[in-house]
């Protein structure tokens, strides 16, 4: 097993005819993901190396039974594309696009929360990889293999760093989920922890957070009450000064809120072991799984 994407995934890619969209859609397909279609308004009838392109998600779903969407369109069109995918009945939507206005994300998130069981991953995220099954997004799959460590992270490259250290120690992953660095992410740490808790293959979860917002604190509370599997955490941004956005739109310490220290403390109080460096995180994981 795994979460969110697997061999049942039938992926439709919005923005498939763009340079990045084509590159990553084909990359995902080569990995074994079932990429069934793409959407680019005005380009229906074209094909991208055999993948049919449609004008709308509605058509793509009707013709190819797509059940998952990857959104790769530019920021100013991305909110619209996410809403269109949901309207067409797609229930797993993975938005890679970076730079979507926060108010757009807010409207999208509020609308989706009122639909039945729609899961939005991202935006501004690297996607989801279930090693050996499916890769949707831009995660470099070669570094990861099948295994029983679930990873959920706000940062892409940091996920690769931690995953790579685990891989070198011989551990693989059930699924790797990038929830993204924006102020209003779709799935939260809590949503993904809930999925990992229910996933038989996952034995342990690594959660990688960063400064800004309160998602890590909320996750700590949730873990204390609802997660029986061991969780190991990492928080980036201990040295970040207040008031400065550290690359991700969501990574900002305002006043005394959202600091790395407060997040680490909340997690430790909930019984979560927090590694001080990515290396220490993998050491703790190894200790728990070997012991």
């Amino acid at each position, binding site marked *: 097993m795994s979460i969110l994407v697997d061999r049942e995934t039938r992926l439709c890619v919005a923005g498939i005819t763009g340079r990045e969209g084509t590159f990553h859609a084909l990359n995902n397909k080569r990995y074994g993901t079932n990429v069934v279609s793409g959407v680019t308004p005005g380009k229906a009838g074209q094909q991208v190396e055999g993948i049919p392109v449609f004008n709308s998600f509605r058509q793509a779903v009707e013709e190819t039974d797509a059940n998952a969407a990857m959104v790769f369109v530019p920021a100013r069109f991305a909110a619209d594309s996410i809403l269109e995918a949901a309207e067409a009945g797609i229930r797993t939507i993975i938005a890679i696009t970076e730079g979507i206005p*926060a108010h757009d994300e*807010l409207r999208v998130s509020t609308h989706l929360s009122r639909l039945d069981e729609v899961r939005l991953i991202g935006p501004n995220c690297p996607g989801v990889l279930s090693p050996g099954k499916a890769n949707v997004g*831009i995660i*470099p799959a070669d570094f990861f293999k099948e295994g029983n460590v679930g990873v959920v992270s706000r940062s892409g490259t940091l996920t*690769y760093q931690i995953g790579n250290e685990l891989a070198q120690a011989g551990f693989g992953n059930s699924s790797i989920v990038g929830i993204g660095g924006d102020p209003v992410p779709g799935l939260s740490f809590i949503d993904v922890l809930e999925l990992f808790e229910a996933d038989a293959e996952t034995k342990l979860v690594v959660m990688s957070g960063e400064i800004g*917002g309160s998602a890590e604190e909320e996750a700590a509370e949730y873990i204390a009450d609802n997660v029986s599997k061991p969780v190991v955490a*990492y928080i980036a941004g201990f040295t970040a000064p207040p008031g400065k956005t550290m690359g991700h739109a969501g990574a900002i310490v305002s006043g005394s809120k959202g600091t*790395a220290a407060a997040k680490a403390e909340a997690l430790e109080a909930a019984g979560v072991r927090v590694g001080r460096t990515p290396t220490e995180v993998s050491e703790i994981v190894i200790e728990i799984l070997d012991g």
Partner: protein
Amino acid sequence: MDLLEYQGKQLFARHGVPVPSGRPAETVDEAVAAADAIGYPCVVKAQVQIGGRGKLGGIKVADGRDEARQHADAILGMDIRGLRVHEVWIEEASQIEAEYYASVVFDRSAKAPLIMLSTKGGMDIEQVAEEDPGAIASLHVDPLLGFQEFHGRWLAFEAGVDGDLVRPLTGMLAKLYETFVAEDAMLIEVNPLIVTPERELRALDAKVTLDGNALYRHPDNAALRNPSAEDPQEQMAKERGLIYVKLDGDIGILGNGAGLVMSTLDVVAQAGGRPANFLDAGGGSKADAIVAAVEVILSDEKVKAVLFNIFGGITRCDEVAKGLIEAFEQVKPQVPFVVRLDGTNDEEGRRLLADAQLPNLVVEATMLEAAERVVALAASPTLQAR
């Protein structure tokens, strides 16, 4: 993006939020002309984004032209907690009967805008929240429904606003909410929101933060400048399309991906070093972006050593290596470089660096080792990397 007080007030005025009239000025003569036009008494206000500027001498009342000149001369160029005053805002003096507080905040955790109202304005709202939490009325607005009049009435009654002000205050909150949505703001704070002896409401201060991701649909806002907040290196990085934050240490940092760069700063700090900057070269960095990044990092004269920490996903390590070799040719750095390359095409990248035999550059295998090495090199400038 944080606006200056007067930029925020001009934004308010566009949406019908009542503000005292005023004019910005960058020179003493401009300030005096503005004061003459507004009339006396008027207030000379330093335009820097820092709380408590009044107590630090940044706000003065002028009763006549001589005083206006004297105050403008004192305030322009003044240093307020490290921020130089480049502009003053000359504003008509207001009569104050009461000071309220109002704000609209983008509440990430509730995924909804949060409106707050209090009759205890004029002081730090966090202090009010601590000492007298009951004095702040707050509610979330459904972003798809928007602000409704009952929201305003509820807040006004809950905050204990005088009866005659409930209706005008509801109108003002509606306009503040409209500004928040229409301008893609992350924060709008009015403190104090004053009541005049004529029972009129006015925004006497304005603190506005806009969403940088939405500036493409607000060209007027995108053109607003805040020279006092812009560091020369940050300015240079922005022009080159790099994500750079200036810090106060002496170790230059470059990485790919915001999380990994933040983590790199932490690991360097744990190794006993002080990072000089945050620089995210981004996904898929090409050689010319690396050259530009090296130039920005080295333009900070405090930098004594530089750490490159790359984990290639979309980014290809051979591209980073090529960029670095190019940068050494063009910039000829005088400080040691420590490089860690992992991920896509890492072997090729390391081979390119080895073949190039760049002076004073060392490659380390892990993030931790690289951090320890760069800290040692920064601490003893005479030590050579190789």
